[in-house]
């Protein structure tokens, strides 16, 4: 249970960073922290202490032997690929923003008002 709570604290840390930081790069980092916390939680959900990796070997697996749930792992793999796209794209935007405005401060980048 402690691990899940720590995960949730990590998520809240990311959210806090997202709310208070003024630097674009720090916003991106905070978003990544939220991402990572959710990936960790997904992995934890499928994890069973002392269980085998979900790979089928030639040898017979004993019937009482527990195997880690492979589904969350595949989900996390997919989500990581998506996160890669997200991060590369959002960083491209950050670079473009820096070139246009000459600053990373979101208070100075405010031609549009919500």
């Amino acid at each position: 249970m402690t691990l899940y709570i720590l995960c949730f604290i990590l998520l809240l840390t990311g959210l806090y960073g997202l709310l208070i930081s003024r630097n674009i790069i720090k916003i991106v980092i905070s978003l990544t922290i939220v991402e990572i916390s959710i990936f960790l939680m997904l992995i934890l959900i499928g994890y069973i202490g002392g269980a085998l990796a979900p790979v089928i070997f030639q040898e017979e697996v004993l019937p009482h032997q527990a195997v880690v749930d492979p589904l969350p792992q595949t989900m996390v793999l997919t989500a990581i690929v998506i996160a890669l796209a997200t991060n590369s794209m959002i960083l491209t935007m950050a670079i473009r923003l820096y070139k246009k405005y000459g600053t990373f401060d979101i208070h100075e980048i405010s031609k549009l008002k919500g």
Partner: protein
Amino acid sequence: MENPVLIFFIFLPFLAAFLIPLLNLFWDQGKTIVLFLVSFVLMLLALIIVINPPQSTQYIPGGWYPVDNIPVGIHLVGDGLSRFMLLIINSIAFLCAIYAIPYVKMFTGQKYFYTLFFLQLAGLNGVVLAGDMFNLFVFMEVTAKASYALVAFGVRKTEIEAAFKYQVMGGLATLFMLFGIAMLYWMTSTLNMADISVVLRNNHAENTNVIHFTQLFFLAGVAIKAAMIPFHAWLPDAHSSAPSPVSAMLSGVVIKVLGIYVILRLFINVFAPSEFLSMVIAVLGGVSMTAGVILAIGAWDLKRLLAYHSISQMGYVLMGIGIGMGVIAGGGSPTTVALTFTGALFHMINHAVFKGLLFLTAGSIEYSTDTLDLRKMGGLARYMPLTMVASFAASMAIAGIPPFNGFFSKFAIIVAAIQGGYHFRAALGLLVGILTLASFVKFQRYAFFGTPRPGVTLKHTPLLMKVSMVTMAVLCLIMSLFIFPEVRAVFLDPAVNTLLETTDYALKQI
């Protein structure tokens, strides 16, 4: 047993998306032809499966059939609601596509525009067809990525800024959804929506608190995507900065599919509707409806005005859904529920048409006059009579003036609110209707009437843009026919019936 036509809604746009840049290497006109043909075929397919619904609603790609009635593979589900959404998506996409052909000539790299357009379309079709939670998430991300890039397509200062804002908010929204999905998987050990619904129903009493916690995460994610009022900051920027055909897609389709459709699917078909949640959704809807229209009255940028109205009109739909869920949870009469859901879905398809059209006319005005500031326009009625007629029809439709479609759907929602005993919400609906009319009178007055500015040079609106706008203006009128039971039985009733089944939907799927 299976319905393989469903896979084409995802496969064809993906194929077109990656074919276009390749084709462009040696054939210049190829991209336009592919754009036209593929979007036309998709619209026809959607129309065919709505008018002539196939026997089976499922398709399982790869042949991973259920084992002992436990679904293991990816399920594409094309039930009444999904087919209805497919019709909205693909018809609006077709009209936006033919509008975009002349419009994107002002940009460089048109092939990338078409590629992103099809990626967005594939994602949208995937979201409504996804039968499991994780595919829903993946296709939401596909749509969102394409939308971010399309918003920033002009690479001017404001566009990049809007796209960055949209990306941060949108990224957070999908992460909240992923968190919700993780919680659901934890509780139920399955990802299939129908299966989740069955498992949740069987051990309902055990973990009510956890379910509420999960629901709040889903609601936060979806509310950001639907731009409900406390979460709306990205929408006016993103929708007003994007190229006009993309604005029409974003406002007309994307917020509906990623926002409203996911709310409907999750909170009505997967979770059983509860009193608490119906209250939250109706309040979110009511607040967005009122605040959106008040913000719109003060806006001077034409596209920003329209974007605020998107928030307001989505508020109507959401309030209708909230009322319907409240009546279901309170054990009210099924006819009231049917009326609210009919009203909400009807308003959704109406909004797709008239808001799409309004953004297209805004694009046409921008194309001709190079400005979107209402104070710099005036007297355009003389120069652009066709745009004026189209935008007049759409304005009357969104304001709810009788022969146009918007009147009937708003009327249905308000009558349903009175029947359900929510008099305050009905009064709010009427008030917002009047304010909407006021702000569109302002738009018409400043843009088309009055004296023309001296020394303006106007470009001619290209033919394809006119065709698209006229088609939508005609649709605004003929969609009023949906109030007749015979027409409604074809288009709206299958979708409403899917919602009326609530969680019994799951039993049909498995």
